[in-house]
């Protein structure tokens, strides 16, 4: 079975590779002195550990490999003038991801993103593309109630991981433009994660919280530490070999200030809260998921960046 899974993953990677070649990739996040790091939210681990899709897969089967595409839409301005123009930013990521058990209670997740971002500027569209920062995360199941013995089934997991600077950090982008217009932070970053799931019959709630500790990269730039949280309410409908899981929830991110040469950069901190809706459909070992996120409240980089929406689709194969 594992052989098939590997083959499957490989095929997706090949498909991904051809897609790269055919797409015009540009890198999108440019702002003056403010740097935001939206694009790294997902490769950092936010999406992977979030209630949405992971909650579902962990219900049917907590172990899978798959491919995911996500799109993030922003607009930003330099914040220098009252009449600074707003520019659209379009971030795209294709990600190979998987969650593989190494023992009864320990699972290892890996995320390998490829970014192709673009943004408008006064002098035309700019783009960046390339492999992003690879994240490896180990989750340890600290507590789980036995399914048949209790009214509510609880699962609590704790974990930690590392994000490697496999994506290229471009200092030129960080200086005069939005530093978040990057495919990587250029730094070794660490994450601490926790996930809690409580289920009652077909209903469930998934909460996740994680904190990303970012270090200074070789260009003496350090992105601010980041707190991600999410809560998802889901319902599992199963019939024959089909399963359908509608989901509704919220997700938020809090960014601390970025630093350069140990000096705090103004207007680089911020926070955002999204509402999200999603659906996952599974048949036998294959599952397809889609979800959309709309901001409810936000204050990113002193108001110089606004998130419009995010959406993602994924195809997973249970191990």
């Amino acid at each position, binding site marked *: 079975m594992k052989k098939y899974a590997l083959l499957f993953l490989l095929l997706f990677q090949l498909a991904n590779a051809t897609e790269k070649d055919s797409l015009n990739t540009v890198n999108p996040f440019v702002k003056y*002195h403010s740097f935001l790091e939206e694009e790294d939210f997902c490769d950092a681990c936010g999406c992977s550990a979030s209630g949405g899709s992971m909650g579902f897969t962990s219900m049917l089967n907590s172990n899978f490999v798959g491919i995911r595409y996500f799109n993030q839409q922003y607009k930003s301005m330099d914040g*220098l003038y009252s*009449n600074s123009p707003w520019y659209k930013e379009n971030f795209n990521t294709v990600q190979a991801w998987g969650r593989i058990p*190494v*023992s009864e209670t320990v699972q290892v997740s890996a995320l390998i993103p490829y970014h192709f971002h673009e943004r408008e500027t006064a002098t035309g569209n700019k783009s960046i593309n390339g492999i992003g920062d690879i994240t490896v995360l180990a989750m340890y199941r600290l507590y789980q109630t036995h399914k048949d013995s209790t009214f509510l089934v609880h699962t609590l997991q704790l974990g*930690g991981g590392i994000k490697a600077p496999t994506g290229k950090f471009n200092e030129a982008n960080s200086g005069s433009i939005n530093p978040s217009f990057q495919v990587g932070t250029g730094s070794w970053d*660490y994450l601490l994660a926790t996930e809690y799931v409580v289920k009652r019959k077909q209903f469930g709630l998934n909460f996740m919280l994680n904190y990303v500790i970012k270090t*200074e990269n070789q260009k003496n730039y350090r992105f601010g530490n980041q707190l991600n949280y999410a809560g998802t309410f889901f319902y599992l409908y199963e019939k024959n070999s089909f399963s359908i899981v509608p989901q509704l929830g919220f997700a938020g991110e809090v960014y601390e200030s970025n630093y350069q040469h140990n*000096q705090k950069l*103004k207007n680089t901190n911020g926070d955002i809260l999204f509402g999200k809706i999603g659906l996952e459909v599974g048949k036998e070992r294959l599952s397809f998921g889609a979800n959309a996120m709309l901001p409810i409240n936000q204050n990113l980089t002193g108001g110089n960046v606004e998130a419009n929406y995010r959406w993602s689709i994924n195809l997973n194969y249970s191990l």
Partner: protein
Amino acid sequence: MKFQLKNILAVLAIAITMFSCSNDDNEAITGEGNLKLEFDNTYKTADFAMNTNYTNSNAEVVAVSKAMYIVSNIVLTKEDGTTFTYPKSQSYFIVDEATPATLVLNLSNIPAGNYTKVKYGIGVDKTQWEAGATGQGDFLAKAQTAGMMWSWSAGYKFVAFEGTFTSSTVSTAKQFKVHTGQTGTDYNYTEVTLDFPKIALVRTTITPQVHIMADLSQLIDGANKISLSEAATVMGGAKLALVTANVSSMFTIDHVHND
């Protein structure tokens, strides 16, 4: 179970080891580097554009066609309070909105250090002018070419601000000219001192860029209000001292890059 715990401990150990790594940033600061002073003209808070209508607080609508000023005598102050005076012979610049290359002053051969403030003059100081035509080096020719001199005896124009305006009493666009420089009673050279919001780290490998906002509206619509309807040509008399006073408050520093 034991096996898993071992794994977790291993991961934790690796993580802690990596956290423990720290850069040693305390290397000696030696050598010389460069620093850029960027002058970004605005009109009030808007990004300034030539020949665009702006309304002043006295309801006059101005469209500016020329915005030039002389920046001189740059002095940088270090964290420890010591100063570095940019060589006087190289310390005269003409900032001209119409010529983008002039908006960034590239200062070179600056001793590496942590700088916290900058001081510069607007105009040409009296001592320099008194050095006579031969004492001006090539700046005299530069100023003449740029139209920033009246005549040698009358001296330099420190600020040249021109365009057209309309108001409640002036219905068809009328030309205005505001030039500062010496008058019979006032010399009108003024100095500006600005603190950096962040330390400018001049290194052999880092060229800080200081982003200075210059609010052109302040020239005539600052603390002192200059009515163009009353007199469209302001080149002398007591009003120049008022414009000069406005000049000293038109500059602010938005940010400093250390790239």
